[in-house]
Every structure is written in C-alpha cells, then in structure tokens.
C-alpha cells in the first residue's frame, strides 16, 4: 500500500501527548515517526537511554509510552534491549509469551555516539533482532548543550564555546552511520524530517522488519541547542539535506542506496546561517570557516556518492 501521511497519523498514537519535551523538540518527532512504522497488531518494547527523551516521557507516576518501556541507564540502552530480546526468544520458545514483539531503542547522540557506543557496538555485533534509533541533535542537550562527538566543527556549545582564541568545536562530527555500516549489520540508514515523512517512515519500517540488528540515525534538531525558532524545524531539516550536510541514504546488506540527490546542491552556509550556534562563522574575517565547512561536506558527499554508484 502506498504511503499516505494522513492515513498514518490516523493510527493509534503510541507516544502519548502530555510528555514534557520542549515545543519543537526533534526527539518526540523521531519517536512518533518511528513508532508509526510498527504494524498495528505488533507489540513493542521500547528501550531508552538516559537523556531528554527519558526524563521528559517517564516521570513517575506518568508515562507517555503506550508500549512496554524500559530505561536502565545512560550508557547501556543497547545492551538492555539485547537482554529483553534474549528473554523474549526463550520465553517465546517455551510458550510463555504468545504476542509478537519488536524491540526498539532510542538514544540521543550522547547515549549513542559517545557513552553508549561500546554497548551499541556489542549489541549490533551479537546480532540481536532490534532497531537502535539515534535521535541525533548534535550535543548533550539534557545537561545543557555540551559538545558531543556528533557536534559538527565550529559549533558553539557550552563545552566548546567560541571565545577570543576559540572558534567553537575543533573536531569534525564523528560519522557514526559509517561506523555502523562497518559492523556489517543487515540494515543501516540515515534520515530526518522531510516533507510527508515518507523517507523516515519507510526506513523505520524496513529497520523494524529486517531480521537482525538495524541502526537508524535520525537528525533530530534541537531549537534550544541549535538556536533557531522552533517553527523553522522543517526548513532546517530540508536545508540539511539540500546542502548534503545530512545525506539521506540506506545500506541494505552492505549495499548503498542514495535515498535522495539534490538537483542543485545548496551551499553549506544556507544551513549554517539559520542557526545561532554557527553565528560566529558569518563574522567578517571568518570566511575561512565557511570554506572549511564547505570543503568537508563536499569531501564526505563525494565519498558517499562513490559508495552509492
């Protein structure tokens, strides 16, 4: 059946309103979009790393999760999910559980790229039938916008501030999606919020219904941390894709597929200038930063294209 957003949003919501995420938060949008990809008859156990999403969605005694949910710690969401999945396999075999369950983990870039990286790598290598979804907002937002290994170069974060002798973050963003591809797992994809959400929906569905481990990296902007008006979310995501800062692609059993190729690749500055975290890059005398950023994106894009062709 062809994808239809209107029909999709008629489905019973699995992430209930009333949670305490900020208005315009990318994490909640990622969660809703991914959970919509579950077949309605299937049940799920959601695992969540500590972070904005966790502290805003399950404050005792309230939970926004209609499915079973477990939060254990910051750095171990993947291993926790693996434990749930392992128990499911046994209990199902023993006839103690009849329902079909899917296992989905959500972690921010802190819980995924950094502190939870080992746990993620281990769980993917072991081959648990699970989907790990990173809602990547490119900094430790829950503790107040500290830089992570996912924060792009030059971004002004609270532990990589700009100053007289600092131009913001010194390092490039870690390419976690590529690292996950290198694990040789059946499915890896990058997506974000675009138009009618078809891209994210289809990738989430494929991730959930591909047997074995799958990794989904979803650029999930944070209006507070990136410093843009919340209502510009869609435009920010569109620009991330049109500038090739965040290319949409998937890797199925090792085979690269480009999901979208911009007709005219926009300059990176178009994406950067919308956000307060990159404001200093537009000061006079800092033109070289824009050039460095552009060159980096061009190089990465070229590498990706060569893998996709």
């Amino acid at each position, binding site marked *: 059946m062809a994808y239809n957003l209107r029909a999709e949003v008629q489905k019973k919501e699995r992430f209930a309103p009333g949670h305490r995420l900020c208005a315009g938060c990318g994490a909640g949008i990622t969660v809703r979009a991914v959970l919509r990809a579950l077949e309605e008859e299937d049940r799920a156990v959601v695992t969540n790393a500590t972070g904005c999403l966790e502290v805003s969605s399950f404050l*005792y005694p309230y939970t926004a999760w209609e499915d079973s*949910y477990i939060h254990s710690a910051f750095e*171990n969401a993947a291993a926790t999910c693996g434990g749930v999945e392992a128990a499911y*396999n046994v209990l199902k075999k023993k006839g103690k559980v009849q329902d079909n369950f899917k296992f989905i983990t959500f972690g921010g870039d802190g819980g995924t790229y950094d502190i939870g990286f080992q746990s993620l790598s281990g769980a993917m290598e072991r081959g648990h039938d699970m989907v790990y979804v990173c809602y990547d907002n490119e900094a430790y937002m829950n503790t107040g916008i500290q830089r992570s290994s996912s924060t792009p170069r030059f971004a002004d974060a609270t532990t990589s501030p700009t100053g007289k002798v600092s131009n913001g973050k010194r390092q490039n963003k870690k390419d976690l999606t590529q690292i996950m591809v290198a694990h040789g797992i059946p499915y890896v994809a990058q997506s974000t919020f675009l138009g009618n959400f078809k891209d994210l929906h289809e990738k989430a569905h494929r991730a959930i219904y591909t047997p074995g481990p799958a990794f989904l990296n979803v650029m999930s902007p944070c209006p507070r941390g990136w410093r843009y008006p919340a209502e510009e979310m869609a435009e920010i995501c569109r620009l991330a894709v049109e500038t090739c800062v965040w290319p949409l692609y998937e890797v199925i059993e090792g085979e690269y597929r480009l999901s979208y190729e911009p007709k005219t690749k926009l300059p990176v500055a178009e994406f950067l200038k919308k956000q307060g975290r990159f404001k200093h890059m537009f000061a006079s005398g800092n033109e070289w930063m824009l050039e460095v950023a552009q060159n980096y994106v061009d190089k990465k894009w070229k590498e990706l294209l060569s893998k996709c062709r």
Partner: protein
Amino acid sequence: MSIRERLSGNEAVAYAMKQINPDVMGAFPITPSTEIPQYFAQYVADGLVDTEYVTVESEHSSMSTCIGAQAAGGRAVTATSSCGLALMFELLYVASSSRLPVTLACVNRALTGPININNDHSDSMGARDAGWIQIYAETNQEAYDNFLQAMPIGEHPDVRLPVMICQDGFITSHGVENIELLEDEIVKDFVGEYQPENYLLKHENPLAVGPYDVTNYYMEHKIQQAEAMKAAKPVILKIAEAFEKVSGRKYGFFESYRMEDAETALVLIGSSAGTARAAVDKLRAQGKKVGMVKLRVFRPFPMEELAAALAGCKAIAVMDKAESFSAAGGPLFAETRSALYDLDTRPKAINYVYGLGGRDFTVDTAETVFAALDEIVATGKTGEVYRHIGQRSE
C-alpha cells in the same frame, strides 16, 4: 538421592546454574570467575539448557543484559569478580531499585589497584550498599547450596531483590572438593518457576520500568527497598529451612562454632572459617574458651541475632578481608560493633584487616588474634582497635 561428586567452586556454581536452567545468562570472563561462563557455554553447546547465552562485550553489558532480561519476565544470571563487579556498579543499583531479582555469582577477588587477581572481599564489600542481598560461602558445597537458594529468596513476593552469591576466588573457586549435588528434579522443584507479577512482555498490559523519579517520590521508593531488605530476613530463614528438608544441610544467617561458653571469638566471612575452626579446636584442646562466628548473610545484616550470639563474650575480633579506608576499621567491623552497642554489657571489640590480595590466613594467624584477645581480657584494655595482620612489616 544426592549425587557425590568432586568439583571446584566455579564448577559447582555452573552446575547449579545448569540445574536451574535460567532464561538468560550475561557472560563475560574475568579471573577467577571465568570458568563459570565457560562451563555454562559447554552446557549450552551440548543442548543441556534452554538459556539464551549472551556473550556481551563487558560486565557493564552483562548486568545491563540481565536487567533487560529479568524486566522482560525471564530469569537472568551472571558471574563476575573484582573489576567486573566494579564496572557494573551503577547497574547494581538499577537492578535493585527496579526490584529485579537477578542472580550474580561473585567470585571474590581484590579490587584493583594495584591489579591483583587473588582473593579478598573488597569487590563485594564495595557494593554492600547497592541494595543486593549478599550471601557468602565457606566451601564449594556452600557456594552450590547458596546459589540454589538465591532465586527462591530474591524472587519471593515480599523481597524482589537481586542476590549476590559470593565465594572466595581461587580458594574455593578453583579448589576441588567433595560435594553433594541434588538431583535435577529436586532442584527444579525447590527453585520453582519464575512468576513475576508484572513484566515487559506480559500479554495483559504493557509495563514501564525505570522512571525519572522526582523528589516527591524517590524517598518512598528507597524506603520500599529498605523494607524489602528487612523482609528478606525471615524469607532467608524460611528458604534455608526448606533447603534443609531436601538436602539435610542446615543454614542460617551465620554459623556459631563452639560459642556456647566462649569468652573470646573471631567473627569472619568465607573460606577463612575453616582455618579459624582449626585454631578454635586447637585452643579448646588446651582448655581455652574460644569460638568463632562465620557470617553467611551480610545483606541483610543480622544485627540482633549476631549481637545475641556474641553477647556472652568478653572480647571479640572482627576479621575484615577488605579495607574500607575509613581510618577506623573495615566494613564487617563497623556493622558488628554497631550491633554490639545495643547489648547492656558488651564484649570489647577489635578489628583485624587481613588476607588482602590473597595474603594467607593461617592457624598461626588465628592463634595470634586469640592471644591478642586474651591480652585484652587480662588487662581490661582494648588498645589499638583498628589493626592489620599478616603483612610483612609485622
């Protein structure tokens, strides 16, 4: 009919695991507990168990796996030592506060640094406030027996707490001893099925585990945990009683050895009890009124019962196989002396930290300690309370 065997402590625990046939095992090696997941891997490879054997990349992930598995509604086990337990530290608290009766075989080894692979209790003593039931073994037989009792205790509806079954690294884990094993059917019957009230995979309703607990609720949840630990005391005794019926072996919070009229006594944990027992017998033969209390259950701490057992003594020495760097003595001493405070007339008490990093504890050492207690009784002076014994500089 029990089965007579010769097994190391590690194999005995692995065998107990096989008989229990848990749903999930988080497996990661660390000396000296490595053999437990190794033996178990062979049971899995030979199709003798139904367990999902999850070969994680760290102890951190083995405890995380156990937390996920137990919350899902399965029975989860793991084994570790020393740094492995330390790496699990945060998750130990998650398991206990989520009220997940995970079972952990702890093969006690000195905590780093400097790195050392031999026995003391610094690993599990460091986790003493993590909300886990802790039961210690003197022998391989006890390690096996304690492991079989772990789940009936931890899973009991009044308790619902994780259980750490401790034995001394190398001393019992690698020492081969005669052992009496129970038949599989008896074990199955005794341990029973895990029947949690709520779990993630339950058909009737979803479940959310691990909330952000604001100030308005956190304290109540901690008090519930504290109440569960208190409730564990009668349950431990009840399960011990049931175990005696199937095994003929009797267990309590501790074992009192020749304490009836003892004037001086040692209080200690684990395999050193065998050595202390020999010293007690030797001194008793010389007409000295000496005894020993071997603590089996450290969490919950049997405060009143231990005080009553020591009430008749004139002086006691508490032997700690772990430093706590309090500058005032080890953990067992702190709690034992605190227990004595409630007695109207209480024995004088001193503390010896001993056996660190595998340092030998001999009959001679035990006799030296008894001699020090004699001195205290004779002079009425306690002298230095916090002492070390067995070190080179003596």
